[in-house]
């Protein structure tokens, strides 16, 4: 089972943190810091796996992948396969890429709840339920479709502030 999914940037700022077992906020922060301190000490061109037992306790492995300014980290136990999880990260990033066209750190920061939605379609209650990025896309789009119509209305009605509008337009491009 997957224990946690984290996305953090190379400065150690957390961009997404999802723990599939409940942990207090302090504990979460501690783990994130622990993971980051290990990650940033890793050289280039080494394996993507880390023995995470000293951070997460017995039977935990960690797989990470470094994309541009972000680390994608999955923590899981022996019931998963390291190489497969590495591909799971790949699926996750591919899906993000499809959603945001060339995903970058800012997309992840500004679309916080959408990232969660995508992740929820992939990993459900700590188990991998979907590994096809097109299926995930379909599900996410269906959810956003429901939001879109009422949301656009409210946008048109309420937004006089053109700064807001311009940001919105930025996203539409």
């Amino acid at each position, binding site marked *: 089972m997957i224990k946690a999914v984290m996305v953090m940037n190379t400065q150690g700022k957390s961009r997404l943190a999802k723990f599939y077992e409940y942990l207090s906020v302090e504990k979460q922060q501690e783990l994130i810091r622990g993971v980051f301190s290990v990650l940033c000490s890793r050289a280039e061109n080494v394996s993507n796996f880390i023995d995470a037992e000293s951070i997460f306790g017995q039977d935990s492995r960690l797989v990470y992948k470094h994309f541009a300014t972000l680390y994608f980290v999955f923590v899981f136990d022996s019931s998963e396969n390291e190489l497969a999880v590495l591909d799971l990260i790949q699926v996750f990033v591919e899906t993000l890429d499809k959603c945001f066209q060339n995903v970058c750190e800012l997309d992840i920061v500004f679309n916080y709840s959408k990232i969660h939605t995508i992740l929820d379609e992939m990993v459900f209650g700590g188990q991998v*339920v979907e590994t096809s990025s097109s299926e995930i896309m379909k599900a996410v789009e269906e959810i956003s479709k429901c939001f879109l119509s009422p949301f656009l209305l409210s946008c048109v009605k309420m937004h006089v502030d053109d700064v807001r509008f311009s940001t919105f337009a930025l996203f539409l491009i």
Partner: protein
Amino acid sequence: MGSQGGFYQSKEFLDLVKSIGEARSKAEEDRIVLNEIETLKRRISEPDIPKRKMKEYIIRLVYIEMLGHDASFGYIHAVKMTHDDSLLVKRTGYLAVTLFLNEDHDLIILIVNTIQKDLKSDNYLVVCAALNAVCKLINEETIPAVLPQVMELLAHPKEAVRKKAIMALHRFYQKSPSSVSHLVSNFRKRLCDNDPGVMGATLCPLFELIARDVNSYKDLVISFVSILKQVAERRLSKAYDYHQMPAPFIQIKLLKILALLGSGDKQASENMYTVVGDIFRKCDSSSNIGNAVLYECICCVSSIYPNPKLLESAADVISRFLKSDSHNLKYMGIDALGRLIKISPEIAEQHQLAVIDCLEDPDDTLKRKTFELLYKMTKSTNVEVIVDRMIDYMISINDNHYKTEIASRCVELAEQFAPSNQWFIQTMNRVFEHAGDLVNIKVAHNLMRLIAEGFGEDDDNADTKLRSSAVESYLRILGEPKLPSVFLQVICWVLGEYGTADGMFSASDITGKLCDVAEAYSNDETVKAYATTALMKIYAFEIAAWRKVDMLPECQSLMEELLASHSTDLQQRAYELQAVIGLDAHAVACIMPSDASCEDIEVDRDLSFLNDYIQEAIEKGAQPYIPESERSGMLNISNFRNQDHHEASSHGLRFEAYELPKPAVQSRIPQTLIASTEIVPVPEPMYPRESYQTTMPSIPSDAGSAELKLRLEGVQKKWGRSTYTPATSTSNSTSQKTVNGTSQGDGASTVSSMRETYDSRKPQVEVSHEKQKLAASLFGGSSKTEKRPATGHKAAKASSHVVEKSHVPKSSMEVASEKAAPAQQPPDLLDLGEPTATSTALQLDPFKQLEGLLDATEVASAVNGAPAASRSPDIMALYADTAAGIHNKNDADLLSGLSNPSVTNMPGTTAMPQVTQSSSKGPNPKDSLEKDALVRQMGVNPSSQNPNLFKDLLG
């Protein structure tokens, strides 16, 4: 563009994110976030906030909490949002509550009702959102509230909902198996779901169920195999392909399940061979996911009943992994190798160079994995190199968790395979020095025991040498600052026991050092106690040898300090020391016999030596002792009075009638006494002797004698020889592995049977050599290796079982092996086993040993399960030695294995003598240098610095 829609956030949020991103320090970030929290606190409680606005506030709260700040003031608003009708708002609410709350939070009760309603919703997106919340927020108590709805959803028309409902049910099972145990059959049903995605999801719970109880799912083997076959043959729609692989994630899960189901089950395994073989062939090894499937195949092959063909393909894949440039694949290769060598140890040999490369790789993960592999393949021939490397690595790392682990592994290997006691002591010293406080205290006890026991033979000379070398090394080590407490305890004990034994060091040297220790580590009471007792021993030995004892001034001041110590234990020790010094030589020699820590304490249970005293007392008019069994019949007055007295003293006057004494009362007092003696911590092996001595004066009374007897019993349980506690006597030969070998044996038995294990060590050592010899002579003759992995597997499996569990009665196993062996081999070979060789197993000459190793090649194929199990590490060793045998013969191959074409071009004969020689000698710097020079000369540039090294590791 549409996908951007519902997730858009306002400018304020963007500004917040941006300013946090630009914050230059943690303090600045905190300030910004605290500011934001203030703003949100104010805004969120305003009346009539538009829903959209509210949704954004909640997202901001989630964001703040992710940054590590408390957002609990907003939880209730998130809960309120889940009640909303709009899907958009509701989803945000659910997202927030799943991130904020845990299943035992007070607010959950407000959500359960909403979840119930939403699970029945017509909109499947609402249902999905609710199921998501169910997974995270429902606990054991609330499961019944949502269970019926979730069960209904298992048949929902949308596959996404079915999938999530299965996961929710799985989650319930994880949280409280009993509450859904009657519904477990639903997982089986869903396996036949029309949608492959749902089927794939069902594999997750099934994997867990099968892991818990393999036998009830054996019937599914055929189904899983046929599913896997269909998947591998691309019967699924293209949509499930990933990087040109057909549904690799489903394949991986299925292979994991098959590995569980086929483990140790020949029949089930046979069903799997074809499909696994197909996958081996079809799998595309150029993609990452293809390799993931291949790796899973190896795991499966090494878990199920072995099949030579599959093992071969697995070995091929492993060599591909190890040769790859990718660290990930190397890592997987090392891991897979570790799995496979349990079944066919010889494959490690092909990859020795790759393994060494991994060991020297800068990648820490890979290094650790490699150490894990080495740990698995350690045997007596390579233990020195491996443990040495491990300790070096242990010293180099800072991670305490891993340090502890590697230290305990070093100890375990050293205890299991130590070639000599000298080496063992040196190794332990290094481990203690660098990871002392991380090592289990039992290890220290073991070390002391070993030094006290020596070689366990009658060769006193060797023992003395061993001890004096230990003493010498400890005196040297004491000069170093900040030694770990556990190590100091060992040092003090050894110095006390043997410091002056060989006459090299004078009593004042040793006592001076001991005083230094007590002073330098003055806040460690245990160390001080050890030092005090050691002092007492030194002085006692001096007195007993009729030498004049001068207490050093620092020792005197130490004693004065201890006599006034707050610790009663230290005080007691100090007083005892004082008392001992005051006694004459004869008395002291009785109390503290020299080098007697291993002697048994003879206990006269009848206390016959008191007979005179009793006689005298009776003559003076004392009441004769009546045994308790006789007394109980008459419910005697004395007992009654006894109780009166007891209660009166505790409660003062009593005015109501006394109740009749219950029979149980009698046993009450002795019981507490037993308990108390048991509880008394015995931190020092000298203790029993002391207590024996100190309790002597209190003997002459009924109660006293009872007490003494009981007390001795308590003591005896810890230290006594098995001769007098019959229950433990049989364990002598059986428990060696647990107690001596692995430090994870249960604490009670290890601590309490220290004495027994002293005894057990000796026969054990003999047995192992004896067996090695026996096996060598039994299966000797043929030098060609014909390994039948089938039997090999059995042996290895059984042996790994023993290594882990290790409570197989040794003696019965031996019998089994003796019975089994002759049946398999022509009787004339038996004659080779010389009786003398078995008894003097420890003094084998190297040639014999080598011969034995070569002869052992057949062992792999001929040994059947039982004897192998009886002595697992040795069998492994034999396997490996087998490998060494081949090594010698195929050294030309080996050199080509060194991976340089120029070598293969060279005539093999030039290299041969060199290799053969070095492999027979083991680690030898000169050899390795020569070899190195030769290799360089030939233009080989070995990737490891010392090409000879792998021979020690792998040969």
